[in-house]
């Protein structure tokens, strides 16, 4: 009998211990998404490691692109698993509308004050602030391409023949590149027919469609690609990989993709999550992202070396001059457009 009592007592003690330790653990862990590859490495270096060091909390990273991450966030509506979620395709607008995201408390995110106004426009509605901006332009092979492109219309130049890489519009950058090509061809957000026609023409000449960033690198490295519409940061990734890739802004304009850090609603440790977002938009983190990956910063206090500033869009006026296709229109039309795109490219 005595043995049984001791056993019960020790069991209860163990259970209590386990309970305590899990609650402590839960309070000190936040879950975020990152975009994998070089991005995740930089993310770790610029934000995650400093955050873990400063707060003693640990960060769990789930690798998921914006669309996948958003699908997960929606699926987990009743029991969200992310604390901070990063988007590059304007998903925060839908997320905020559906109540999946929480507005930030400016008192707990002091760095918000230093951001350019356009980067924090709808923070009060729950849309997270933009901490990096990727500019979409033309990526080309400076050794093999018969000539350097200068405008978006050059994509249609027959000189590039079948060495063109198109990006599927399921990819956020692909969507922006397509919309810009559409605009250059005479279309608008109300009418994407000219863009689809252009894409069909290019496919007829033998263009390749890819859907992820690493595939673009593969096309340039192995499959003799000459030109693609893509983001400036990726041009830098190709350059670092030793490929003769150059980035130019098309003369018709340069669309931008805002990368945002969003606070997920319905999570217990929002204060810690806000601390994470605060560090994400700090001038140190943004400068680090610019140095590592050549993303344009949104924090007005960031200062970059000339060398880094040279291959990106930098400074409030330059960044403000980027075209931002209305993400709400994109979101409203996304499923229609993807459907039309799929039909246009289907074999």
């Amino acid at each position, binding site marked *: 009998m005595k043995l049984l009592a001791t056993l019960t007592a020790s069991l209860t003690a163990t259970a209590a211990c386990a309970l305590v330790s899990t609650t402590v653990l839960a309070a000190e862990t936040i879950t975020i998404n990152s975009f994998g590859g070089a991005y995740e490495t930089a993310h770790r270096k610029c934000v995650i490691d400093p955050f873990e060091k400063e707060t003693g909390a640990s960060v769990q990273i789930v690798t998921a692109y914006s669309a996948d991450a958003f699908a997960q966030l929606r699926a987990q509506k009743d029991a969200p698993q992310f604390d901070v979620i990063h988007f590059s395709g304007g998903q925060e607008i839908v997320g905020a509308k559906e109540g999946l995201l929480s507005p930030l408390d400016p008192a707990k995110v002091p760095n918000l004050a230093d951001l350019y106004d356009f980067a924090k426009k709808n923070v009060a509605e729950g849309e997270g602030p933009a901490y990096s901006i990727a500019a979409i332009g033309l990526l080309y092979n400076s050794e093999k391409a018969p000539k350097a492109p200068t405008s978006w219309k050059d994509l249609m130049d027959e000189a590039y023949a079948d060495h063109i890489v198109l990006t599927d519009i399921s990819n956020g950058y692909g969507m922006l590149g397509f919309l810009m090509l559409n605009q250059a061809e005479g279309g608008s957000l109300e009418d994407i027919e000219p863009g689809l026609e252009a894409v069909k023409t290019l496919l007829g000449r033998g263009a390749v469609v890819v859907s992820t960033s690493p595939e673009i690198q593969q096309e340039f490295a192995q499959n003799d690609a000459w030109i693609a519409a893509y983001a400036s940061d990726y041009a830098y990734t190709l350059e670092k990989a030793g490929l003769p890739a150059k980035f130019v802004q098309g003369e018709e304009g340069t669309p931008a993709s805002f990368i945002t850090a969003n606070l997920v609603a319905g999570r217990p440790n929002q204060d810690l999550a806000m601390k994470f977002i605060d560090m994400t938009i700090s001038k140190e983190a943004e400068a680090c992202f610019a140095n590592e990956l050549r993303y344009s910063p949104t924090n007005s206090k960031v200062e970059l070396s000339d060398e880094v500033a040279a291959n990106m869009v930098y400074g409030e006026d330059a960044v403000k001059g980027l075209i931002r296709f209305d993400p709400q229109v994109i979101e409203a039309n996304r*499923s229609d457009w*993807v459907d039309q795109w799929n039909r246009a490219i289907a074999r």
Partner: protein
Amino acid sequence: MSDRTENLVLVLPGLLLLALAFLVPIGQMLVLSVEGENGFTLAHFSRFLTDSYYLGVLWRTIRLSIVITAICAAIGFPFAYIMAHVGPRIRLWLVLLVILPLMTSVVVRTFGWMVLLGRSGLVPDILRDLGLAGRNFSLMHTEAAIVIGMVQVLLPFMTLSILGILTRLDPRLEEAARTMGCSFLKTIRTVVLPLALPGIVAGSLLVFTLSASSFVTPNLLGGSRIQMLATSIYRQVTQTLDWPFAAAQATILFVGVLLILIPYARLTGARNG
């Protein structure tokens, strides 16, 4: 405990797992697929079944699965026959050889094919050197690439299903047929093949269902331009966020596979007892 309760206890964990991991999600999917803004609707199904684009996707899925199954059977049967007739040592090596593809991750294996089949890959290069293909020839993002990639993965399922039957075959049956004057091919056709049919059917069922529902290989080797049902469902879920329509497509895939499997299994089951 009686035998019956013992059996029940033994089967319970499996049943629970099946219920939780299979029946509940399938049930949810079925509900989602008929959910509209105003309650019950079949709009998602009629949208799929009246649109030539989606019907094309469905047809491609079925067509490629049949081709993959046929190629697997055509390669798998002779291979299994040889395996059944060699000594145990060599058989072990052959089994290893055939299941080797299953030992690497599907993604890694598929990336291997991407390197081989791409524009500057080994296969198009050789074809170009032989003058069999043009300058821009590439096997990537073609139906052929999907078939090649899938056959490699699914061949073990076919071969091992057939091998299981062939090793249990009485060798004297074949000897008897040969003594009675059958040629080698006739022996295969009239004796071995009919007896191996349950194995071929089982293997075909496995291969067909696996290829109809596979996602990674068609997605990577077929690219965005060649959609199969599983890739189309993935796109609806992650890109257009139209979950009810995705659920309807998943249901169609599910029912389609069932419809093909049941009569097939019945037919061959009746013949082979």
